[in-house]
Each structure stands twice: as structure tokens, then as C-alpha cells.
């Protein structure tokens, strides 16, 4: 494959994946509103389009036309940069997520993944670590004691739960033996899904990821009734929309990782003509990701919030020892089997 073909195919893949991701982010807002409404025994958006499906479009138009208040007392460079940092790092991690197998379109073939790095999992972890800066700098640049406190609390929470997040993934790595996300999915063929092999790691990963993305029950730093609104108090219109999109894009990344690492990614019954064989894995992947997004929303509107000290104590005193114990037990079992 020549270099120009490679570049053109990569650009097409990036544009398509980015478009799908941004649409998914917009419609996860719709999903949240509908599911929360039905949990609370009301209807949710029903007027804009059938089942309120055009509601995200209306929300987008609203955000564009909303007045962008510019505060006089904020530190301008960081104030504008912080939501951009959050959004950029939230979207970048989709670049190593595989959606399906090899596809052949005419004379060209490619993996359904923007790039297959042999350290794909570490890249996702690294991008998650860098996403903390958006929150911390937003709190700092707003020049406001409530935003500063909210930003510090949120960043302390995020870096605390990053540790147990990474350690819970080490169990999966011991079983698989490779950091490449495609290899991890390939090792789960024939229903050897990692959820059966590493159940403890799955729950630790899910809880740490909920805390990492600042979602209930761990969303104290940004809850509406706490600390005014936490680190995004002073943000309005487009910049607030960027924080919002970054949060939902992080949720999508976590859901994709959970399906890839524990639920077999795109593996599922595949049958029929070749065109169906190329599309069905993507369909299975999307269904599993949709299930995890639904789980996110379901948990949010069911469980109460943790207090901040309970949250930090839980992360350091319960999840971290549990993750380390999981690693030790997994390593012992793998070494005994070999």
C-alpha cells in the first residue's frame, strides 16, 4: 500500500470516526434525558421530532446562540484553554479504539481502527491522565474560591482513581499478554470473555471509571447543589458546552474500553454474506457500548452521591488494595498454570 493511499484511508477513517463520536456524544445527552425521565416517571423530550430525537440539534443551536459572558476577572489564556484541553483529550482517545475486524473495500483493505498501536491501552491511560489538566486549570483560571475548591477536589479525585483504574487493567494484561487493544479482543474468542476470567477487575474498573469521569455516585465536585457548580461555575454557552461534550466523550471512551477489555469487543455471532460479515461486528460493538452508556445513566439516577471524604477513603482504602490483591491472585494462577 503506497503512502498516499495510506494517508487518504487514514483521513477518511479519522473523519468518519470523529463524526460518529460527536453524534454519539450528542445523542448520549438525549439518552440521559429520556432514561432519567422514565426512571422519574415522566416523559422527557417528546416534542422536537419523534421521541424527541431532534432535541440535541435544538440544544446545539441554543448553545451557539447563547450569550457568551466574558468575565472581567478571569485569567484569560487559561480560561479559554481549559475547556479546549478537556475536549481535545476526551476526543483523542477514540483513535486507538478498534471497532471491528479487517474490511476489504474494493482493492483496499484496512482495520476498522484509526491506528493499531502495540501500546494502545497505555495511550488511553495517558490521555486520561492528561485530561485532569482541563479541570484543574478551569478551577484556577476562574479566579473564584468556589471554582478553585471544586477544581482541586475534582483533580484530586481523578488522580486518586487513576491508580486503581490502571491496576485493575493489569489483571487483564496478565491474562492476555499484550497491550494492543486488538490483541486483547482477539484473545477473547470463543466466549473466553474476560468478564468470566476477571470479574473483580471488571467491577474495580467500572467503579474507578465512574469516579474518573466525575459521574454519580462520584460527582460531588460538579454537582449542582454543591459548591455552586464546581469548576465550571464561571463558564457559559460554548465553553460550558465543551466541558459537557468532554464529559460525555469520556463516558463513551470508558464504555468502549469496558466492552473491549471485558466483554469481547466486536466478537459475536457472525454469519451471512461478506458484506454482512464486515458490518455485524460493528453492530455488536455498538450494542455493547450502548449497554454501558445505559448503565452509566441508570446508575446516575438510582444511587445517591458519595461525600468527598467517603469518596477518597473508598478509592485509597478499598479499591486500591482490592486491585493489588486481584493482580497477585491472577499472577499466581497464571504462573501455576504455565
Amino acid at each position, binding site marked *: 500500500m503506497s503512502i498516499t493511499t495510506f494517508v487518504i484511508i487514514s483521513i477518511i477513517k479519522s473523519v468518519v470516526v470523529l463524526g460518529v463520536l460527536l453524534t454519539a456524544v450528542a445523542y448520549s445527552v438525549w439518552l440521559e434525558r429520556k432514561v432519567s425521565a422514565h426512571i422519574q416517571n415522566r416523559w422527557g423530550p417528546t416534542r422536537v421530532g419523534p421521541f424527541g430525537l431532534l432535541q440535541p440539534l435544538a440544544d446545539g443551536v441554543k448553545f451557539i446562540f447563547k450569550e457568551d459572558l466574558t468575565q472581567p476577572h478571569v485569567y484569560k489564556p487559561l480560561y479559554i484553554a481549559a475547556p479546549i484541553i478537556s475536549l481535545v483529550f476526551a476526543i483523542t482517545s477514540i483513535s486507538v479504539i478498534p471497532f471491528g475486524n479487517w474490511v476489504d473495500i474494493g482493492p483496499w483493505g484496512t482495520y476498522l481502527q484509526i491506528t493499531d498501536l502495540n*501500546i494502545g491501552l497505555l495511550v488511553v491511560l495517558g490521555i486520561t491522565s*492528561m485530561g485532569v*489538566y482541563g479541570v484543574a486549570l478551569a478551577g484556577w483560571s476562574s479566579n473564584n474560591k468556589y471554582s478553585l475548591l471544586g477544581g482541586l477536589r475534582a483533580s484530586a479525585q481523578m488522580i486518586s482513581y487513576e491508580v486503581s483504574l*490502571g491496576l485493575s487493567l493489569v489483571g487483564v494484561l496478565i491474562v492476555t499478554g499484550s497491550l494492543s487493544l486488538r490483541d486483547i479482543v482477539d484473545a477473547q474468542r470463543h466466549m473466553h470473555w474476560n468478564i468470566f476470567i476477571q470479574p473483580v477487575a471488571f467491577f474495580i474498573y467500572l467503579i474507578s471509571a465512574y469516579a474518573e469521569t466525575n459521574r454519580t455516585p462520584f460527582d460531588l465536585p460538579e454537582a449542582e447543589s454543591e459548591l455552586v457548580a464546581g469548576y465550571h461555575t464561571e463558564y457559559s454557552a460554548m465553553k460550558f458546552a465543551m466541558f459537557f461534550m468532554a464529559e460525555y466523550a469520556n463516558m463513551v471512551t470508558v464504555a468502549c474500553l469496558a466492552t473491549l477489555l471485558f466483554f469481547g469487543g466486536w466478537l459475536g455471532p457472525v454469519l451471512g454474506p461478506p458484506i454482512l460479515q464486515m458490518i455485524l461486528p460493528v453492530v455488536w460493538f455498538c450494542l455493547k457500548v450502548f449497554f454501558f452508556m445505559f448503565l452509566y445513566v441508570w446508575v446516575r439516577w438510582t444511587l445517591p452521591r458519595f461525600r468527598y471524604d467517603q469518596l477518597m477513603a473508598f478509592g485509597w482504602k478499598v479499591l486500591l488494595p482490592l486491585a493489588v490483591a486481584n493482580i497477585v491472585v491472577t499472577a499466581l494462577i497464571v504462573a501455576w498454570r504455565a
Partner: protein
Amino acid sequence: MLHLILFLFFGTICVAGAINLLAQSHPINSALSLIAVMASLAGEYLLLGAEFVAAVQVIVYAGAIMVLFVITIMLLNAGKEERTKGSRIAILIGVPGVVTGGVLVAWTLLHRPDMQTIPIGALKGDPSDIARLLFHDFLLPFEVTSVLILIAIMGAVVLASRPEAIARPHHSTAGPQEIRELVATGKDRR
């Protein structure tokens, strides 16, 4: 050619970030330029083929250590640093001296007759090869650094806590003023 362009791109960001760290007066700006230096160093490691080191650099250095720095700067909130008086003689001798020394070192480094070149992505190391080295040849340093991190965690928790927070629990009914007096006179431990 592309290798040279990428090297110069990342290298320029590194040097610009390092000089910006010296030039800025508020520590938060210095911290942000240091983050830029570390991220572009990760790019340099990728050019050398050390992808695992690049990932670990982003996760550990740019994503954890610098977050600690940024959180501490925000917490302590001490503001811009004061300018101390510089002595004029030091600037008159020092700046030409540094420039001369720098040019000398750069000349020696760049004009060797037998410069060995490194192709792009020279290091051929899987993460599994690095792991094999780490757990076989370098096992003792690995274990020693684990103990070192444990000691550092305990030390940091003790050093950064307030004295009344680690006073013995015999005095749980004492108010904060009494606890401070007990700690000051050394009577908080039986």
C-alpha cells in the same frame, strides 16, 4: 527528511518550554511550560523508537507528577515571585561566559568526523522484552524502588499533615487548642 523536521519541531518546543520556565515569574506559567517540555520529550522518545518509555513519560511525568505540582501551586497560591537584585558584574561576566561555553560545547558535539546516525524508530523493543529485562536482570533495583516509593508515600503523608491530625487518639475529647498544646509540649503520646 521527515525525521529531521519532526526532531526539530519537538526539539524547538522543548527548548522554548525550558526557556519559558526560566522567563516566567508566576510559577503556574512555569509549570505549564514544563508540561509542554515533557509532552514534546515524549514525542522525541517516539522518534527514537522507545514507545513504551514515551507512554510512561506521558502517564507518570506529564500526567501525575506535574499534576502534583499544579495542585500544590494552586493550593499554596503564593503569587508571583519577587525579583531579587541581580549584580551587574555577574550579568556582565556570566552571560558571555555561558554563551561562549555553550557555543564551544555545541561545536565540539556537532563537528565530529565520525558522527553515528540513528534511524527513525531505532529501538526495537516490545514492552514484553523490557518486562523481561526488568524482572530478570534488574529485579533488585525494581524491588528497591518499590520500597522507596512506599517510604516516600509514608513520608509525604506525615510531612504534609498538620500535627494535630496525627496526635494519639487518647485525647479524642480535647479541642483543637488543647491538642496543639499537647503536641507542643510533647505530651500527646503516653
